């Protein structure tokens, strides 16, 4: 059986790996520094504490092109104490910025879900900024894998 290059790419168990790791030298991935810079800009230079915010993401992505995540922040969501915004970053994407959710006391609760593309195995980071200026962070490693050999 002779296959065209295109067929080979879709055929082999490695197609996902090609997409995931082989984007080639022209694509420049974000590095830790770029992520740090985005976090600093969001927090006004404060280092985020752990706690309060929970990031939910799959351990291994079923499809790197559309990875479902959700964030929730433990907050009263009253005029005196509420979550202003939650920023989500993907450390290993060409551009780490994914989305920023904004809330108000009227939101009732600070939860949100979205889907994101992940170019490769990387940390997803979520940072919550409270109305008093305090910031909290959660982080999760999401693997983007070739698949096909389990069982």
């Amino acid at each position, binding site marked *: 059986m002779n296959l065209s290059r295109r067929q080979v790419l879709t055929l*082999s*168990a490695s197609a996902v790996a090609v997409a995931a790791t082989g984007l080639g030298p022209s694509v420049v991935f974000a590095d830790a520094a770029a992520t740090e810079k985005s976090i600093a800009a969001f927090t006004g230079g404060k280092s985020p504490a752990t706690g309060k915010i929970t990031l939910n993401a799959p351990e291994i992505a079923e499809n790197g092109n559309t990875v479902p995540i959700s964030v929730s922040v433990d907050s009263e969501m009253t005029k005196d104490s509420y979550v202003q915004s939650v920023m989500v970053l993907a450390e290993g994407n060409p551009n780490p910025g994914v989305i920023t959710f904004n809330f108000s006391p009227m939101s009732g609760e600070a939860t949100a879900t979205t889907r994101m593309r992940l170019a490769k*195995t990387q940390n997803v980071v979520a940072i919550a900024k409270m109305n008093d200026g305090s910031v909290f962070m959660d982080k999760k490693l999401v*693997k983007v*894998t070739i*698949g*096909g*050999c389990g069982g």
Partner: protein
Amino acid sequence: MFSRREFLTASVALGAIAGVGMEGLWSRAAAQQALSENDLLDAPDFGNVTLLHLTDIHAQLKPLYFREPSINIGVGEVEGLPPHVTGADFLKMFNLKPGSPEAYALTSVDFTALAKAYGKMGGLDRIATIAKRVRAERGDKVLFLDGGDTWQGSYTANASKGADMVEAMNALGLDAMTGHWEFTYGTDRVEEIVDTLDFPLLAGNIFDAEWNEPAFEAYQIFERGGVKVAVIGQAFPYTPIANPRWMIPNWSFGIREDEVRKNVAAARDDGAELVVLLSHNGFDVDRKLASRVDGIDVLLSGHTHDALPEPIRVGNTMIIASGSNGKFISRLDLDVADGSVKGFRYRLIPVFSDVITPDPEISALIDRLRGPHEAELQRELGRTETLLYRRGNFNGTFDDLICQALIAERDAEISLSPGFRWGTSLISGQSITVDDLHNACAMTYPEAYRSTMSGQLIKDILEDVADNLFNPDPYYQQGGDMVRVGGMGYTINPKKPIGSRISDMTVLRTGESIDPKRNYVVAGWASVNEGTEGPPIWDVVEAHLKNNPTVNIEENRSVKLVM
């Protein structure tokens, strides 16, 4: 070869095992008796609930040989812990006598000799005898649960799209199941079966991919012996990654620890006094889950095919590992009062097919299900002079046969074969029938592809699969074994991180190092990608056996392990 009588008197019986405070010695109660059905099954009346657990039978209706792994490495926190203990170490840890029936059932030590002495294991008609006896003794106290990987793995299961197994399991009278390979029949077929099944397929971790709503019932509450027992189903979390996602595009899986937590709480709110997680997570994932989610009394573990003679306790949870292929069935008698477990008796019952009388009704059903295919099933393709097996972290001899066939019949330089944990064993001198071959490769995506891959890509694949197996965090493990290779060798260090576990990749024929930049012709099978083309793998192996009907394969020495 032992006579049946010698077998019966040869050894240690499996007496009353375990119970609170008895973890550590499996067979000490049983020193010198003869092995009879009664020895295997007799149990004092205890408690008010009995759980029977069967898992990963992979459509095996008939007795079989199945060699347990000689290599099953644990990394990180689980290094050296069961189930990552094999061979002589396993015998020592559980105080089993070498050469005993337990040693044969639970390890790979002297496998061929002991297989010839003690015979085949399993058979759904023998399992039916056990279940019926337990039901007769325990009446309304019994809950019979199937951990999944039931509908796939044989010629007849494939031919009937799982219908033979569904009929057999309905006849056995199960109370609930969960799944994994079941989903490789595709969404429509699964839904069709679930609608007609006599019992629920429970899975709290499968969601509609578009709306993120539960796709299956998460749990059900059964009343047994006056106790409300919640059974929560947990399907294999990585089904759409390890198996073709395109066959089940609308279902999303995952460990979803929070959902388990939520379902445990909901079941307790519903009045459950005993919470059972019927899981297809794999053992290490289950052990981690049990350490992080409170409120699971009994975790019935499946997927990684481990057979452990004692429960492993994590906090207040006991984890039961019941093996695979119908070699074992677990019986757990529980004394439940005031919403908690006050005591238990556990027995991993080895299904010695020559000792346990087949149930005539299920025997007849199996004959009827296999009948239309019997001539084809018995058709001989060759004969093996050496042990053929698959289970273990690296290449087994049955895989080597498949890899050789791929290279020869598909004209390839290198072959790849998935590290599945199912696939039965053949001992030296056995003929290889269509039945046997399909036990090693029956599936719904069997196409044997032929393509070119760069040396770098081959390394990336090996690294990726190795990380699925040896990631120190169990939640990132998928539970298969290492992908098998033909035509090449490599060295692996499981303790290294991804990207640096694999080294010294060599083309065996020339002895040359594999060049990351060169393209190699690679043949393989069971690709998860849609549209894969090629003949089914069983045709490839059959053609190879036609040209090479006598199989003689020594242990693979081209995969080197360093730690």
